[in-house]
C-alpha cells in the first residue's frame, strides 16, 4: 500500500472546501492541517475562506422571530383537530 504522508499545495487546494466543512477523514484532516502549518500561501487562502464562511453564517443567522408566528404555531399545536394520533 502506498500511504501518502504529505500533501502538496495542489492536493490541499483540491480539499480546501471539504476541510473547511470538516468533511474529510481524520487522516486527511491531519494531512491538510500539517501542510497549512508550514505553507504561508495555503494558510492565507484557508484563513480567508474560513473568514468568509464565518462572516456569512453569522450575518445570515441574525433574525428575530415575529411574536405573531409563535402565537399562530401555538394555536396549531394546541388544536387537537390538527393532530394525527401519536
Amino acid at each position, binding site marked *: 500500500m502506498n500511504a501518502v504522508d504529505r500533501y502538496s499545495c495542489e492536493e490541499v*487546494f483540491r480539499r*480546501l*472546501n*471539504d476541510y473547511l*466543512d*470538516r*468533511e474529510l477523514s481524520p487522516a486527511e484532516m491531519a494531512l491538510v492541517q500539517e501542510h497549512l502549518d508550514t505553507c504561508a500561501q495555503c494558510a*492565507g*487562502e484557508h*484563513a*480567508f*475562506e474560513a*473568514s*468568509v*464562511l464565518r*462572516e*456569512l*453564517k453569522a*450575518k*445570515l*443567522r*441574525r*433574525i428575530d*422571530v*415575529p411574536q*405573531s*408566528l*409563535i402565537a*399562530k*404555531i*401555538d394555536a*396549531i*399545536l*394546541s388544536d387537537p383537530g*390538527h*393532530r*394525527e*394520533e*401519536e
Partner: protein
Amino acid sequence: MLAVPDWTGSLRLLAPLVALAFTRPSRTEHPTPTPLDDVLTPLLARAYGLALRLLRNRADAEDLVQEAALAACRGFGTFQRGTNFKAWFFRILTNCYYARHRRQRHEGPPVDLHETPELYLYSRTAEIGLHQNAADPAQALLDRLDGEQIATALQGLPEEYRVVSTLYLVEDFSYQQIGAILDIPVGTVRSRLHRGRRILQKLLWRLALERGVVPEAAKEPG
C-alpha cells in the same frame, strides 16, 4: 387560509432514510414519547430563519413555517423516536418550500456559472490591496455588507445551489444531513455547495461594487 398539502404518505416512506442519516445513540432502549410541542417550539426561530432566507419575505416565511408545522402535526406519528427531530422537521419545511415555490425563479442579473474560479473574493480583494491593509481582509470586506445584503446575494444563486447553500450557511448541516433532507446523494450536495460557494463569492463582489463598498476601479475585466 393556508392550503396544506398532505405530506403524511411521503413522510412515511422517507422516514427510515432520514432516520438513518440522523440517528444518534439513545440513552434508553424504550424512549418515552415526546410531545410535539416540546420538540417543535424550540426550533421555531431556526425554522423561520431558514424560511426567511429561502423566501426573503417575512409574510411568506411565516406562512411556510405554519404550513410545515401543520404537516408535522399530521405526520408526527411517522417520526421515529430517538432520531433527529430537527432534521425530520426541516425536511418537511423544505418539501413545503419546494411545493409552493419551485416555479419561482431567482431574480437579479444572470450569473456566469462556468467562469467563476476558486478563491474569487481572495483574488479580487488582493487586487485592491485589502490584504496589505487589513489583518482579516475577508472580514474587512464583509463587515461593509449587512445581513440583508448578503441574503440578497444568496437569493441570486440558482435554486439548486441556493437551497443547499442556505441549509449549510443558516443551519450548519453536514453534507450527509443535507442529502437526507433533500433526498439527493452526498456527492451532489458537495458539488452544489462548492459551486454555489464560488458563485456566491462573485455575487457578493458585484454587490460590494454596486453598493460602493469597494472602488469602482476594482471592476472585473470584461
